[in-house]
């Protein structure tokens, strides 16, 4: 059986996304999926304390931030990013496994002024959520 591959999409790298999650398999999959759309350039960070430096260097348009991480959790990282002159305006999308069914069914939702998306992430919903946060709607 031969597997037919889709022709690869041209990557215009219009939107830069920084993904911070302690699980390398998750960040790798998000990168593959988002870059596979041809619309995103993705940088991954698996050690949360390195997130601020990565954000300063990479200058992403948006940061996808896991909530529960061993060294510094998503809340701590968000505070660091928002207290830094260079990164304070970068929108953050929290991606969390600790979400109720009701919240998860909403797709992108807001809580305490923050944007949230439930794990497991659907690439189409992730893509449209990034559009909504950055441009208001898709």
């Amino acid at each position: 059986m031969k597997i037919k591959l889709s022709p690869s999409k041209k990557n215009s790298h219009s939107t830069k996304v920084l993904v911070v999650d302690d699980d390398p398999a998750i960040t790798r999959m998000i990168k593959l999926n988002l870059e596979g759309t041809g619309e995103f350039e993705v940088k991954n960070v698996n050690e949360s304390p390195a997130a601020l430096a990565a954000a300063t260097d990479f200058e992403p348009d948006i940061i996808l931030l896991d909530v529960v991480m061993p060294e510094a959790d998503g809340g701590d990282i968000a505070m660091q990013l928002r207290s830094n002159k260079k990164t304070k305006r970068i929108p953050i999308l929290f991606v969390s496994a600790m979400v109720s069914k009701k919240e998860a069914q909403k797709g992108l939702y807001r809580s305490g002024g923050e944007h949230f998306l439930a794990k497991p992430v659907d690439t189409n919903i992730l893509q449209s959520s990034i559009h909504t946060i950055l441009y208001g709607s898709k």
Partner: protein
Amino acid sequence: MDTGVGEENMIDHRRRADGSELFLLSSKVPLQDDLGTVIGLVGISLDITEQKTIERKLKSTIQTLEETKLQLIEAEKLKTIGRLSAGVAHEVKNPLNVVSLGAQYLESQIEGPEEILEIIRDIREAVKKANDVIFELLDYSSPHEMEMEPANINQLIEHVLGLLRHNLLTARIQVCCDLDDKLDPVRLDSQKMEQALINLVLNAISVMKSGGTLTLRSSSWQMKTTGSNVAGAMTELFEIGDTIVSVEIIDSGAGLSEDDENKAFDPFYTTNPTGQGTGLGLSVTRSIVDLHHGMITLENRTDGPGAVAQILLPAATETKK
């Protein structure tokens, strides 16, 4: 005359003429003549029946306390599982996320053959199902306020049967549903009422040790009579003209003993061996039904062996409290 070897502080257990028990604490000495022949007996007895009765009661109370202690430990274990479930959910959802995103990526990169795409879709569907199970666990274990809204209780029954499919299959129990498709809606907290139904179905499963049939029946009717032909609790809760929604969970087990009928809804009352159930299920169920201004009964079936648990709830339009 001499005395033989006596007995001291012996407990004699006897029955009185009326059949009641008698306990005597006795000390006796045989009287012998010069040849050593027993010619009499000298003794003293103290009636200790009351003391023995109290001792027995105390023993039984201590045993009940021991069992209750074990059941409390079981209940505490369940609470702990509830608290742990959030962490478990997190640990399971991360790998699910990898599988899901991996399948999505493959789906986006592969054009065929169709069998491969089918497999990828199956993987995504399986992830979705596993994720739903985690949500159920999270939602079930997380405390929440009452959220009352009109709902069709048939849907809850079907959902509960779906959740307990594995338990029913393992216990070799056949399920019969007799659900009224024109059932009036009921104002309820779906999650709490689901918990009540789960408890009742689990209870029914536990009494059908070698398999059996579980029947779930829903119906609604208008209350037309009051007084002696209607249960006292019903007349307190419902008035003539009220529409009542009924759910019956009918098992084909051995039925209820008199003790079961009297104590089934008492906290920590269980017929299961210690360690298999907390004895809290039916008590929690009754509290949930009470919160919905309804009533619950558990009685033996009149049409054969087994028991019927019936929940009566006011239809949505009738809820006035």
